[in-house]
Structure formats: C-alpha cells, structure tokens
C-alpha cells in the first residue's frame, strides 16, 4: 500500500482546486509575455482587449498575430494537453489500482505512433486521396484513429462473455505496444531522410503546430471525456478495493471500466495526435497529487487536470524560450524533468515507510 505523506498534507490547501485554477489563469497570462520576443504587459492587454472586447487599439498586425494567433492558441493547447494527459493518467491508475499505470500501457500511444508514422510515410502515395484532402492534418487524424483502434483492440482482447479482465488488458497492452514498436521501427527503417526527420520530431513531441482550428477540435475531445471521467469518481474510489468489493457495493464495474478506458483513449489519443508523444505527465502528475490530496478521485482527477495544465504551460514556455529562437521538443523536456522528479518522489516515499 502506498502511503500518503502526512507531512505534505499541509500542502493540500495550496494545491486545492481554487488555488490551482488561479495559478493556471495567472500562468496562462504570464506565459503570453514570455517568448523569443518578450512583450510588455500593456500590449498583451491591448491585444486581448481588442480581440475579446472589440476595442479599437490600432495595434500593428504583427503584434496581434504573434499574441492572438501564435502564442495564445499554443498556451491554451498546452493547458488542455497537460490537463488531459494528467486526468487520463489518474483515472487509468485508479482503474488498474497501480500507481505505475499510464495510458500508454493500454496501447494508446503506440497505436498513435504506428498510424502517425504511416501517415508521414504514405500520405503522398497510398493514402493519396485522404492525404490531399486532409493536407497537414493527415498525421493528426491518423494518430487519433490509431490510438482509438489500438485501445479498442486491447479492450476487445481482454473481454469475453461480457467481462473485461483488467489484468489481461494490461498484458494485451504490453503485447500490442511491442508490436506497435516493431511496426514503427520497420517503417522508420524504410523511410528516407526527410521522413525520418518528420518521424523523429513527431516522436519527441511538440506543441508548435498550435492554431485555433486545432484547439477547437481538441477542446471538446478532452473536456467531454474528462467530465465523464470525473462523474465516475466514486466508482473509481470503490474500484481501489478491487472489482469484487466494488460490485458488492453496487458499482456496475463493467460500465465503469468501459467509460474509463474509452474516455482515457479519447483524451490521450486527441492529445497525442496534436502534440506527439509527451512523456511522464500522465504518470507523475497524478502521483504527486495523490501523495498530497489522497487517492479519492473527486479531488484527485480535478487536481491532476489543473496541475497537469499548469505544469505543461511552463514546460512549453521553457521549450520555446530556453534555446530561442530554436525550440526544444517538449517531450524531451518533460521526460528530462519528470523522470528525476519521479525518482526523488519514490525515494521520499520509501523513506517515510
């Protein structure tokens, strides 16, 4: 049993939903100022005023474009990607009763990868019609489709006679992930240099392609499943006791499993499709929130979503400013920061046992 850390429980006030919401809003505005070109607060205010309130400020077009069309959608995208990955991670960890579970375990990411790489390689040839119709979105659409198909394949493999075994799902997920890795590797092996570069960058993750259309697609795909997940909070709490006890208490466990898996797949699939692979957010953020807030899902899911969004805003801000005017792939950054932090957390927990 993983203990919560009583000495950190005093922090729970500071990580409560209202505080995190405020921090998130403040960070979003602050991140607008920071970038390859630093902008003064007044100008940001004027742009927002012009766009949101319809004021006539007579600003230069480049400034409006930079703030409204480049930075703002990207920051909002990072909020939803970070929040989405973290809430999906928290729910999946609850379902699997395992703090090391990650949506990647059920094949979401590897499925997205196979299809995305296929999209990069074949968009001109095999996928000709689809490719020319979707244009740049081909890879995104392919990745999303791939993540959903793979997850449902894993779910189907683990189900028989109306019962889905969580353990089989985990095993099937591992097998499918390995298969996906092999297929990705195979396609990578046969790709030319340009394709290789595209594949590498997609794999490392980036929010660089953000725009309002992308955001308009992503937000409902993250928000609606996230609300559905949150409504399963009590059921997920009881599933911590095991499926049997949850069923004895009146939980329709099969329904909860289906909702959690399909919602997590939708969220993660959509996030991976727009941003590529971003590691560790889905693993570390719920773990951190759980240590402080405890494992009950009503606060855990909400806290994870808010903290995930908050951390991602800053991670992406760092990704686009650290080596400006170039950019670091955000997937590298989250793993670079997330992994040592996670190890530190593990050591900390071990000592308090």
């Amino acid at each position, binding site marked *: *049993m*993983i*203990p*919560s850390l*009583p000495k950190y429980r005093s922090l729970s006030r500071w990580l409560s939903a209202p505080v995190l919401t405020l921090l998130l809003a403040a960070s979003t505005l602050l991140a607008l100022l920071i970038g390859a070109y630093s902008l003064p607060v007044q100008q940001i205010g004027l742009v927002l005023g012009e766009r949101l309130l319809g004021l006539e400020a007579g600003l230069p077009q480049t400034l409006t474009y930079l703030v409204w069309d480049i930075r703002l959608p990207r920051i909002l995208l990072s909020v939803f990607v970070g929040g989405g990955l973290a809430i999906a991670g928290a729910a999946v960890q609850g379902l699997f*009763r*395992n*703090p090391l579970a990650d949506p990647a375990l059920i094949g979401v990411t590897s499925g997205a990868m196979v299809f995305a790489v296929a999209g990069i390689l074949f968009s001109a040839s095999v996928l000709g019609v689809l490719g020319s119709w979707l244009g740049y979105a081909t890879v995104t659409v392919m990745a999303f489709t791939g993540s959903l198909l793979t997850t449902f394949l894993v779910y189907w493999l683990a189900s028989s006679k109306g019962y889905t075994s969580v353990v089989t799902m985990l095993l099937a997920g591992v097998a499918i992930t390995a298969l996906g890795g092999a297929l990705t590797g195979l396609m990578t092996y046969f790709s030319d240099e340009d394709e290789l570069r595209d594949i590498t960058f997609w794999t490392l993750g980036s929010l660089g392609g953000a725009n309002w259309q992308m955001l308009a697609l992503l937000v409902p795909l993250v928000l609606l499943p996230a609300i559905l997940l949150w409504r399963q909070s*009590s*059921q997920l*709490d*009881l599933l*911590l*006791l*095991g499926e*049997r*006890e949850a*069923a*004895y*208490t*009146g*939980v*329709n466990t099969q329904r909860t499993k289906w909702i959690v898996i399909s919602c997590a797949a939708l969220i993660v699939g959509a996030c991976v499709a727009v941003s590529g692979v971003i590691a560790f957010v889905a693993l570390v953020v719920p773990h951190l929130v*759980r240590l402080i807030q*405890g*494992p*009950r899902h009503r606060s855990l899911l909400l806290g994870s979503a808010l903290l995930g969004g908050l951390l991602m805003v800053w991670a992406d801000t760092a990704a686009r400013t650290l080596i400006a005017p170039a950019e670091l792939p955000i997937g590298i950054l989250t793993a670079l920061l997330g992994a040592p932090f996670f190890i530190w957390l593990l050591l900390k927990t071990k000592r308090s046992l």
Partner: protein
Amino acid sequence: MIEANQIGVRKSGRWILRKAGVKVRAGELVALIGANGAGKSTLLKAVAGEVAPEEGTVSINGQLLADWPAAGLAKVRGVLSQSVQLPFSMPVIDLVEMGRYPYQGQEPGGRIREIARHCLRQVGLSGYEARDICTLSGGEQQRAQLARVLAQVYRDEAAQERFLLLDEPTASQDIAQKQQLLSLLRKLANEAGLGILTILHDLNLAMQYADRVVLLRGGHLLKSGPPEAVLTPEGIAQGFGLKARVVHTPGEAWPHILTCPTAVDLFQNEETSIP
C-alpha cells in the same frame, strides 16, 4: 430472508458445490463451517451474487438475486471478503464513507460522515478517523473494512430486512478481538436486526455465538441446525475427519469443543464420547 436452495456451482467441469443451501432470517447469526475446500466461500459468493450458480436459486427478501437492481441490492446486503487490499492509503474515515456509495447523491456530506463515525464506533475504532489506513494493524484494517460494510447497509429505520455476508472476519484478529468481533455481530443481529451469514473456522466461536450452523463437506450440505446439534463429535468427525470432544463445564452456558490429535483420554468431564 435470504434463501439459497439447491445451489450447484461447477468450475472447469467439476462440481464444487451441489445441492447446497442456506437460509438466513433477519436477526439471525448463521455460521458457515467446513474444512478447506468444502465449498464455504463458493456458497457465500453464490449468495452474494458474485458467482452465478448453474443450479438452484438465491433470493433475498423474496426477490431473486438476478432481479435486484445493483444499488438496491447493495442497500440490503453488505459483503466483506477475507482480505481487501488497498493500493493507496487513505484516512480511515474516507474508506468508511466510501461504503455509502449506494446512497450517492441522496444524502449530504455531513450525514455521510456522521454514519461513518457511528460505524467506526461500532467496530471499536473511535479516534481512528484521521489515521492513515497503512498505519493500522492487519486486524484493525479488517475492522475498518467491516465498518465500511456496516455503513453500506446502515439505515435509520429499516424498511427492508438487511444482511451481512462475511468471509472469515476473525482471520487476522487476536483471541480477545475475535470475541469482541463476534459479540459485535451478535449485537448487530439482536439490536439492529441484521441477518448475518459468516464463514467461521473457530468452532468454539460458532458454538458460542451462532443461532444456527451450516456444515459443508466436499461441496455438499452435511448438517444444518442449532450449534449443539451440528457441532457434535460425529458432526466434527464427518465434516473435518477429526476426533473431537464436546465438553460441558459447569457454570458455562455453552459447551467447549476440544479437538484431539490422538484418542488419548485426557478429559474427565466429557458428556459425549468419540464415536
């Protein structure tokens, strides 16, 4: 009333329970006993609805198990498995509050907390509300789980008969706690009118506290009735293949069962002889 009739359960083609049955009335404490592999847990699971029997029927309050809606069933019968493992620790009160799931959205948070405190008091864990479960001993954790199940079936005014199904609740308790736990169950049966079906390994506890004892052997019902009628040397020999004496001590309300590794005649006050 819980009625399980002619229950047959097959696993991989082999009958592990056949023509077994049990009845539990409100206010009654029924002990399910038998050797390991006799089918006690399977019968309990069939009554709980986890295992669907191939033969026979289970009904609660006159309604077949399959016809109960999940939440409705959870309100009238609570089940406690032998060992429940939590992957993450949480405060004890949180665990107990989770038991109120069937009433979700029907009562305010303060009321849920009140009920949880009441149930913790019942199992002797007052003052443990804010403790982390991982700091509790195995026996205390088991009682916290019992409090959760009690919270699940808690009602101010019972509209329906309610039942508890327990799988060896005394497993990780010391000898004093076993007595406390069984007297709590006895009290819940007498005062709250709960019908309790519990697997017990300790025959003396069954003798002392149960209204009726159901003895299983090899998946079949061997004997059923008042403890003194079932827990005879013959019954114990048939059910467990063990020689035993049932000893009445003057001044004690119930006899004691003494199991013997050999047939050595150590006891003078015996009432019944070994067959």
